[in-house]
């Protein structure tokens, strides 16, 4: 049972919910997804276009993987050809294109989970709820899901997730909440320590242009020696950041891409704050 939960879901945010087993993480996610209604209190605001990925999706439905995705795409409001097209490309992204014509009951647990994830991503939802969606996925698919989540956040969606791995999307979460007792409180140390691989992007904007606001992954940036800007961002956000820079108006020019040195930082001594005054050599 949960009580006194006060949670705001702004756009462009990645929210992590933590808590011990049985404290009500899944219940909270189901409330947020609009699957259940609260017996007391209410959820305000327009209902966003929502997608939900359950923890275990071994659905014995009489459809093929692609057939199920097309049905779900249509329920999301897509037209049939568009739904079929996106179903194919998302299955492909998660390495399950070969199973598009396999009936759902014959899929392995991991591939079923890929179908569940594809179902949620194919309609580009405004609110994406992931209840341990990474469980059962292979490493490549997990990384792909990390990137897909970063893309959704960059595109303006709100993503709320629960995962047993504390390093999952660490450094990317904009807010971390912890369920304690019956309530929800902001977790200490949020946003989480910046561990995990990071990418350094050397870019140059048009003369006199300011750094675009609201870049994905809130990259650290410092002026580079050649007059450009050096962005450092969590690897999960690098694709989304590149996309944002290249499609900015006026667009930015990418000069160099490299893995950032000093991957592991001690969580106790947090890295340099944003707008570091001393330029770093690449």
């Amino acid at each position, binding site marked *: 049972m949960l009580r006194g939960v006060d949670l705001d879901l702004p756009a462009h945010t990645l929210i992590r919910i933590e808590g011990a087993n049985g404290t009500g993480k899944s219940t909270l996610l189901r409330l947020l997804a609009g*699957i*259940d209604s609260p017996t007391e209190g209410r959820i305000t605001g327009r*209902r966003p276009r929502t*997608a*939900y990925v359950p923890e275990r999706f071994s659905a014995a439905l*009489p459809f093929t993987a692609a057939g199920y995705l097309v*049905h779900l795409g249509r329920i999301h*409001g897509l037209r049939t050809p568009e739904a079929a097209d996106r179903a194919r490309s998302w299955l492909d992204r998660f390495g399950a294109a070969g199973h598009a014509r396999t009936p759902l009951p014959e899929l392995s647990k991991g591939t079923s989970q890929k179908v569940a994830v594809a179902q949620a991503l194919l309609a580009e939802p405004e609110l994406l709820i992931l209840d341990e969606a990474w469980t059962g996925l292979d490493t490549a698919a997990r990384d792909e899901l990390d990137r897909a989540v970063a893309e959704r956040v960059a595109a303006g969606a709100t993503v709320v997730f629960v995962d047993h791995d504390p390093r999952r999307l660490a450094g990317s979460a904009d807010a971390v909440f912890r369920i304690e007792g019956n309530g929800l409180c902001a977790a200490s140390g949020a946003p989480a320590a910046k561990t995990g691989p990071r990418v350094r992007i050397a870019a140059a904007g048009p003369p006199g242009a300011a750094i675009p606001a609201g870049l994905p992954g809130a990259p650290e940036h410092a002026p580079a020696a050649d007059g450009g800007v050096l962005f450092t961002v969590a690897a999960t956000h690098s694709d989304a950041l590149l996309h944002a820079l290249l499609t900015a108006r006026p667009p930015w020019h990418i000069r160099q891409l490299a893995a950032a040195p000093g991957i592991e930082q001690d969580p106790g001594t947090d890295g340099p704050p944003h707008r570091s005054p001393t330029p770093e050599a690449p």
Partner: protein
Amino acid sequence: MTALLRYQTALLVRSQRWLAPVLLYAAFVGVGVQWGQPVLDSLGYAAAGLLPVTAWLVQLCVSQEPPAARTVTAAVAGSPRAHLAPLLAGTGCGGLLGAAATLVVLLISKPNSTDNTVRVALLPAGIAGLLAAVCCVLLGAAVGALCTRPLLHRRGWSVAATVLTALLALVTGGSPANTAVTGLVTGSRTGTVHLPVLPFVAAAALAAAAAALACKLAALRG
């Protein structure tokens, strides 16, 4: 809603669980409706059988999605709409069955009263038969919606409650289904066609209320 209905109907058709109720109804009509029997009698008999069969079909539709898949569709469409879709799919299936049965009865029956003295016009008889069938389908849908998830979660209770309520809805005097069916059967004696308009309105109201309750509870009790 169209996409949800399409999804639920595809689930029902592909799962082949519709076979049992449809075959049962076919057997019921096959045994009771013979070539050359008075048309109004046979229409009443065919309509009465639709009530329990629609209740069964609606329950099949409501429970055909595994819980994980149900949460996924409920998140996309909202729980009430996600619950309304299977109710409509089951009711639509019952309606199709009723339309087919009414057509068959009209084709093979004799357009006379029971004692063969009065001729019965086929068109009004057909309309009355269709309306009676719709009454029974709607009441069956209401019974089906109330005797399963989210109101009754246990399968055993659900089956027992459905059988009992469907039987009561058929035999209790004053229930829309009972009024519509007895209207046809008693009309057959004198060769007069009673259009069951009032029972139709009552059945529609009952079905809408049952669906509204079930859809509202779907978000609260799963």
